[in-house]
């Protein structure tokens, strides 16, 4: 049975949780994702994907039973303990299980996470924590034995490129495709080391080239994030520099005003340099978004792709109704 989880990166998105029943029962209009139109509304197509892909696919199992809360890509967005407890209480009220999501961090970020881990470790139930940093995994494994670490999608380093969303590169040879479609997480030492540290679940983006990994009978299970595929991230933030004076822009040691909570950018890649004759022209995706320090692509994997993955040990969908930052 496939579990459906709702990802809320921050308190701003609490409406998604408050309206979780509406998400399940909503009517999904077929609004095109076209920024040239005056009524450009980039996020409803995501709920449309929910309606046309997940809803029929999950059928009678269509029910959110878990909430992912927290930021994956920036330690400036680690929630306060107050926000976390507010979301957690709302989850309890709605009888939803709770998973805390963490980003990659410096030592400063670890100091912010420690009180949250201490609180979660003291809760009655064993709580899942998504880790996107081996340091965080090390910390949880050593100091918080009641928490259940999950290896997040930032640790699953399969290549991806939005420009090949619709057509793979011309001339790709079979060996290249095999490498592109596999994760290294199923290699023996990964399984042994991560397993010893308490990891039982790996998380995946749906990459354009497809995923061939089979988790059936492996002792591990896997989650799919849908429909936003993370492409790249870094601590240098264009959006976070919007309000800074020129000499302080793009620095690591200057605090931002969290402009990523207010603005996002839509990317249009340039036309192909070969004057539209090469094979990859049709792969140029226009569905690329920059949110803060991170680039995402909208992955419109159809139902049959998901169904195939469900048959191979992918037993959880982490649905992201909004841009996941």
């Amino acid at each position, binding site marked *: 049975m496939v579990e459906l989880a709702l990802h809320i990166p921050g308190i701003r998105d609490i409406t998604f949780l408050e309206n979780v029943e509406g998400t399940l029962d909503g009517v999904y209009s077929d609004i095109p994702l076209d920024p040239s139109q005056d009524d450009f509304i980039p996020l409803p197509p995501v709920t449309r994907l929910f309606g046309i892909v997940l809803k029929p696919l999950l059928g009678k199992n269509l029910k959110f039973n878990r909430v992912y809360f927290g930021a994956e890509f920036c330690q400036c967005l680690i929630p306060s303990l107050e926000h976390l407890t507010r979301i957690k209480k709302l989850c309890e009220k709605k009888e939803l299980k709770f998973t805390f999501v963490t980003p990659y961090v410096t030592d400063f*970020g670890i100091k912010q996470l420690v009180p949250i881990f201490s609180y979660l470790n003291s809760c009655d139930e064993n709580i899942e924590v998504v880790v996107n940093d081996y*340091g965080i995994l090390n910390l949880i494994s050593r100091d918080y034995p009641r928490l259940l670490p999950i290896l997040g999608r930032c640790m699953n380093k399969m290549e991806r490129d939005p420009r090949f969303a619709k057509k793979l590169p011309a001339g790709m040879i079979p060996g290249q495709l095999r490498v592109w479609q596999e994760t*290294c997480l199923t290699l023996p030492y990964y399984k042994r080391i991560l397993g010893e540290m308490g990891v039982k679940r790996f998380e995946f983006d749906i990459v354009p080239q497809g995923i061939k990994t089979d988790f059936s009978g492996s002792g591990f299970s896997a989650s799919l994030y849908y429909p936003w595929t993370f492409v790249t991230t870094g601590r240098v933030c264009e959006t976070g520099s919007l309000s800074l004076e020129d000499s302080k*822009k793009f620095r690591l040691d200057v605090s931002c005003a969290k402009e990523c909570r207010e603005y*996002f950018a839509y990317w249009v*890649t340039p036309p192909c*340099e070969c004057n539209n004759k090469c094979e990859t022209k049709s792969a140029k995706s226009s569905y690329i978004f*920059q949110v803060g320090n991170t680039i995402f692509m909208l992955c419109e994997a159809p139902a049959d792709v998901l169904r195939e993955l469900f048959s191979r040990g992918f037993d959880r969908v982490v649905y992201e109704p909004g841009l996941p930052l």
Partner: protein
Amino acid sequence: MKINVGIDEKIKEQDIERLVTLGADEFFCGIMTDAWVDNYGSQMSTNRRTSPVEQFTDYRTIKRIIDKIHSFGKKVTIVFNAHTYIEEQYPLLMEYLRILCDYGIDAVTVTNIDLLSRINSEHPDLPAHISGDAGVYNSEAVRFYKRFGIKRIILPRHLTVSEIKEIIKSNPGLEYECFIMEMRCAFEGAYCFLSHSWTQKPLCQEENKKMYYKYLPSLGRAARITPAEHLKTEDNKNRYDVWCHKDSIVQTFMSVKDRYVQQCGLCQIAELRKAGVNVLKIAARGTEPDSKFISVSMVKKVISSPLPDEKFCKSVRGNPEICDLKYMCYYR
């Protein structure tokens, strides 16, 4: 402090001699032979550099260069820092390692913990360095990697000097290497999964049109920004493109020397030394030999200076306007 410089097939034996004379203490390089390329293409590189000119492609050449480096009493590290390898690639990877160990390679740089574990098992005496692309951002991550008996951590690019200081203070007893020149990017090697080889430019270096929108409080809706916001985002984007060193922009104001050297952290060397950094990395795989010579000599000048303050470092860099802009800096 030692200088570790990236080398590749363009380097000649006499270039090694010159680099050593200028101050290079260590060298690092990758290898990817035809046997690998025939099966996986250069795109699925052994070492995150996908062009043949960014590494060595045959055993004879690399052996000659290793021998030359050793003749000066210097060390050479082989880099196998791809994020992902699959099982069928291991026989060839391990063959590379067996042969290179026979050639006397001094260390191996890795990212992938499965490969690291296999190296520990088959070559227990070969010192392992953790690549900057492994993403060691905090003291706990160092502790994670310590379990593998590693000798050195190469810290990622996106750390401040004070963050580096904290990591090293919490974990003494290891060697620490930091980037000091070249190949800086707004995205972090540990968390960048973009392919860099199937198109002329990676996505981040393309001349992408970016259109900013504003979230609206209602669920999932966005609004167009105001003209004032547009001007603000455009100015910010232009500056970001300079920071990102986009060719079309920086060519207009970079000198020939600046094009060779690009980003640097010269003025932070003194602080990095105080923080406990042992080795400075010049990420020069694939650059012209002249670029390597200039970079090594600049770094050596600063390391050797009794007073490597900002004024001195600016004079070494030789383009104060670039320094004042503060967009070509490591560790800022």
